[in-house]
């Protein structure tokens, strides 16, 4: 277990194009932190810089208070699970897991004990004589995790470990990784492009976009109090409805339809040249609760999902999606009134993308 700190970390390949822009992060002992973002946002690069597989162009990476910028990967006391598993094809499973311990001159009986324990934990103890080629994708990923566990490193790094597995296996492995974290209490940094994986696994999530840290907070805060337009649009499925709006007499004007805003929010938005109005699909309800604000709308599309129905509606000039009960049957063209709690309304500065809360 260890803590990891990034201080103003930058990465530039040729001195001109910067791909990571001065990122500050602090990962606590035993914390499960997920780096999430679309492909090309720099999340894997950042992870590889912590691992020592990429050089650090500026700033500082510290593991347990010690600057590791110039340490080779083998001296950073980290273990990594790769997207493509990266098992040694010429070694059997036992030797794959024992390799790191052998290099560290661990006594043979200690190696055996640690490998057997990890293998039992991951339920691969009956196939240790096999080579990676004889395994399925899920089994290979277990071996890769086992290879990391036996090392008992200070920090575990996971680079999109589930993205090569099919959907069902991915869910199973996700649960397993979460259990593993609870059991080992290890510090884990996990990279994924899948926001569901990020939400379910993380103690804290760092949302990255184009090499910038957009927000670093708990899944709850990321979801309910997104700090930026990008975060609001990236999290949730479907993501937050984001609509251009103008401020008029303490209400958001969505092109003909006015949604009254809480006074505090309206005050923050005043004076901004361009604003975006945001509300999550599940916060647009058909039934009013005390204090709710009514929003007149017109149904334009139904997408039944079984347990619920996604309804696309016209509100003023804009289109929004609402998550409705499966019993919702209003045909396209019919007028309905949506209800939303003022606390669930968001405003963003359209120019900077910053949230105004």
């Amino acid at each position: 277990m260890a803590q990891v700190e990034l201080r103003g970390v930058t990465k530039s390949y040729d001195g001109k194009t910067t791909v990571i822009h001065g990122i500050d992060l602090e990962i606590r002992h035993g914390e499960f932190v997920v780096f999430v973002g679309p492909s090309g946002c720099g999340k894997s690069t950042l992870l590889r810089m912590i691992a020592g597989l990429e050089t650090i162009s500026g700033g500082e990476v510290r593991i347990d208070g010690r600057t590791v910028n110039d340490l080779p990967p083998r001296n950073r006391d980290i273990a990594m699970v790769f997207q493509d598993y990266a098992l040694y094809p010429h070694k059997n499973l036992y030797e794959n897991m024992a390799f790191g311990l052998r290099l560290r001159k661990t006594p043979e009986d200690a190696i055996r004990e640690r490998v057997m324990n990890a293998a039992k934990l991951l339920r691969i103890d009956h196939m240790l004589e096999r080579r990676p080629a004889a395994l399925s994708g899920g089994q290979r990923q277990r071996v890769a995790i086992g290879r990391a566990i036996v090392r008992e490193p200070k920090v575990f790094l996971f680079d999109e470990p589930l993205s090569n597995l099919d959907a069902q296996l991915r869910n199973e492995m996700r649960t397993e990784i979460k259990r593993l974290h609870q059991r080992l209490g290890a510090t884990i940094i996990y990279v994924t492009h899948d926001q569901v994986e990020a939400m379910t696994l993380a103690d804290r999530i760092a949302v990255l976009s184009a090499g910038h840290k957009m927000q670093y907070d708990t899944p709850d805060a990321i979801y309910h109090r997104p700090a930026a337009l990008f975060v609001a649009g990236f999290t949730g499925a479907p993501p937050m409805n984001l609509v251009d709006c103008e401020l008029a007499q303490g209400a958001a004007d969505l092109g003909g339809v006015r949604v009254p805003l809480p006074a505090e929010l309206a005050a923050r938005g005043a004076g901004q040249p361009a604003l975006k109005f945001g509300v999550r699909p599940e916060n647009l309800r058909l039934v009013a609760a005390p204090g709710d604000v009514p929003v007149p709308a017109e149904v334009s599309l139904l997408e039944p999902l079984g347990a619920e129905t996604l309804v696309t509606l016209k509100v003023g000039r804009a289109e929004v999606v609402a998550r409705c009960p499966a019993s919702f049957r209003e045909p396209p063209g019919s007028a309905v009134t949506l209800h939303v709690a003022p606390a669930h309304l968001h405003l963003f500065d359209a120019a900077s993308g910053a949230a105004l809360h």
Partner: protein
Amino acid sequence: MTLPRGRPLTLLAAAIVVVNGFFPAVWILLTSLKSEAELVSKPITWWPRDPTLANYVQAFTDQPLLRYLGNSLAVAVLSTILSLVVAALAAYAIARLNLRHRQLILTCIVASSMFPLVTLLVPIFQTMRSLGLLNTYTALVLPYTVLNLPVCTLVLVSFFQSIPRDLENAAMIDGCTRLGALWRVVVPLAAPGVFTAGILAFVNAWDEFLLALSLNASASMRTLPVGITLYQGEFTFPWPIISAALVVAIVPVAVLIAVFQERVVGGLTQGGLKG
């Protein structure tokens, strides 16, 4: 059932290559088992009428064939090992490191193998003489290594490039240095390439005549190709004995290739990654 188009032509081409390659070797083997008298008798006998090993006995007694064999083996093995080590390091650098002008470097390596050996002979001879290395194994091991480097490097570059980088990254995180990852992970996985390059280097060194003749002329340092030329007298040309000596020269190479062939074919890299 119709044969796929082009199939008979393909088979014919394959047959031509096989016959062209094997006929001389088989003919030499058959000749080595015939007596001198049978060889010159007409009509030609394809299969030896009276197979004999006498030519082999004579091949070993007329000349110190065993000594030549030992010299050839020493020179070929040493230069092959040296070629592989140096070529592996060079190939790794070209395949993996962020080198500037990588393509130019590769082109230069290819170009350097295009000098005719004859043009290099005199400078090499002079160099070896001034270093006092004439009639030593070193005199042949060094130039053979240098001459084999381009082809070995090229073969290894393409094999190294086919090995996923994350395997090395995993090894470096597990505790290897970059060189350690090369020797423990990359080279074993590139085994087919290493054997291919090794066989090429070995055969080139084993067959080489011009340098061997010029640099190691003394009787005790001769290699097989040079030694075999000495069976002929001014007026005699003992084909059966020369054939026997040639068979002795061919066998080690044939055994080497037969032994390593499986390893060259084996797909060792399967299964470490997804898919």
